[in-house]
């Protein structure tokens, strides 16, 4: 439709002199908005009070949204590479805001399935498409610092909850009446605000011209061992052991992180505060979200210097040491050491998310890195189910068998350290991709594959 021609890939090519540092702001506009998902829990109690739904039932809304984040990222990655980032960001804004509107209708009509379909399914599609929409564009604009660039965007996803949480609470206070908690009008307000906020990203995002490179930068003649100059098509990437090794690396890092995020607040209360300082425990959770956010930028930026494999090796080795150390902080009664350990752990949890797009770019090239990243995010969905189930089951088993509550955490921590050991082995097994998987067809000027792989000459290759 001509009305939407402004979304076309061809209309997003940057003019000469376009400043590439505007691209991270477009990415942040999307990620800061969709990062709201992490703050959905602020609606749990008000919805429970207003509608009489159980908290465990309301918890499904967030879980379904995260599942559909993974599903849509996997399904729409190739479409995104074809249509470009602007159309994808627009679709993400429509789905995400539409999810709020349908969810508001669900609340007004007291229909939980409609809330689930709105925020969980439609909103989940917005999360998935929005999450992957700026990744390959950022990598194209920042070939010299791909980790830092994608880290900045994904930091936004971690930081979105920091904006959404006080904003949602403020709006609910504003709309609250004697008979309503004000959730439905808050959903409508958020739909409008986030749509406007995300449109800024839609109109700001640009693709670099063909052959564009940062001023004064040339690709290194001898790139590091794992960095390829070739490209691998998304379906072909899934046939490589490297894809599945990185899938497990992400899944295990996230599983361990989710496992401790859920435990962090009850742990500090039961081990150190004996349940007397809920405000301090809330402060601890806030500090962890800050560590999660800054870790996303810091670790991804560091990976540009030390390499992706070394970065993940650091996550797993340092993570194992810290997970094993945490139970001892209880014995030492040192809140400070406990907090420091958790801050580092959470920074590495965030860093795991933000470093992975650059890892994929190193292994599979830039041609379809957004689509490959989308497929890899199924690891996140899997971890979202696996992590809490594993942790809760073990904890309940321990307590049922007479282990004191404060001690039951130790077993969880040691188990998470074991998961990180498996992740470390997967990471150490990552080798350069076999050249037989390289894409050998023509690549169109916009970076898309024009023809399927034919075999034969390999354009570029890995510096093994």
């Amino acid at each position, binding site marked *: 439709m001509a009305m939407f021609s402004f979304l076309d890939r061809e209309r997003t090519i940057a003019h000469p*002199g376009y400043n590439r540092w505007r691209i991270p702001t477009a990415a*942040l506009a999307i990620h*800061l908005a969709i990062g709201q998902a992490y703050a959905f829990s602020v609606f749990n109690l008000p919805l429970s009070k207003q509608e009489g739904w159980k908290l465990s039932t309301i918890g499904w809304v967030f879980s379904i949204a995260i599942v559909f984040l993974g599903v849509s990222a996997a399904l729409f990655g190739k479409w995104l590479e074809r249509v470009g980032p602007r159309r994808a960001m627009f679709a993400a804004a429509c789905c995400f805001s539409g999810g709020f509107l349908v969810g508001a209708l669900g609340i007004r009509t007291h229909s939980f399935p409609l809330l689930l379909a709105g925020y969980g399914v439609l909103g989940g599609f917005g999360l998935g498409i929005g999450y992957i929409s700026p990744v390959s564009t950022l990598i194209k604009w920042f070939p010299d610092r791909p980790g830092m660039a994608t880290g900045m965007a994904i930091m936004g996803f971690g930081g979105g909850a920091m904006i*959404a949480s006080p904003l949602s609470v403020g709006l609910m206070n504003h709309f609250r009446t004697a008979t309503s908690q004000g959730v439905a009008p808050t959903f409508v307000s958020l739909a409008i605000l986030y749509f406007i906020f995300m449109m*800024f990203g839609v109109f700001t995002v640009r693709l670099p011209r063909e052959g564009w490179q940062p001023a004064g930068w040339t690709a290194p003649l001898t790139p590091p061992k794992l960095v390829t100059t070739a490209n691998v098509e998304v379906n072909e990437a899934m046939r490589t052991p490297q894809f599945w090794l990185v899938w497990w690396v992400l899944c295990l890092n996230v599983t361990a992180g989710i496992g401790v995020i859920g435990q962090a607040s009850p742990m500090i209360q039961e081990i150190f505060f004996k349940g007397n300082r809920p405000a*301090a425990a809330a*402060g601890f959770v806030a500090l962890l979200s800050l560590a999660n956010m800054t870790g996303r930028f810091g670790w991804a930026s560091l990976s540009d210097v030390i390499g992706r494999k070394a970065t993940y090796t650091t996550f797993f080795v340092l993570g194992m040491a810290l997970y094993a150390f945490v139970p001892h902080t209880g014995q030492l009664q040192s809140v400070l050491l406990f907090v420091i350990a958790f801050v580092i752990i959470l920074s590495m949890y965030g860093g795991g998310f933000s470093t992975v797009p650059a890892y994929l770019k190193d292994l599979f090239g830039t041609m379809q890195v957004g689509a490959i990243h989308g497929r890899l995010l199924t690891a996140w969905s899997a971890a979202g189910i696996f992590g809490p189930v594993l942790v809760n089951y073990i904890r309940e088993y321990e307590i049922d068998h007479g282990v004191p509550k404060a001690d039951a955490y130790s077993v969880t921590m040691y188990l998470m350290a074991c998961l990180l050991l498996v992740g470390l082995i997967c990471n150490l097994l990552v080798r350069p991709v076999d050249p037989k998987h390289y894409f050998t067809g023509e690549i169109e000027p916009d970076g898309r594959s024009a023809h399927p792989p034919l075999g034969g000459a390999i354009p570029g290759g890995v510096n093994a």
Partner: protein
Amino acid sequence: MPDVTPRPTDAEASGEAAKLWLSWLWVGIPGLWGVYHVVVDALKIFK
């Protein structure tokens, strides 16, 4: 081959700089507002 890519004029360059600032303000103000709230909450741990 000489580089024939058109260079931006001074006016275009200053316009681009202004857009860059506005872009960072657009995401920076809400971002810092969120960080402020988290820092205030986080400080409660030491009280």
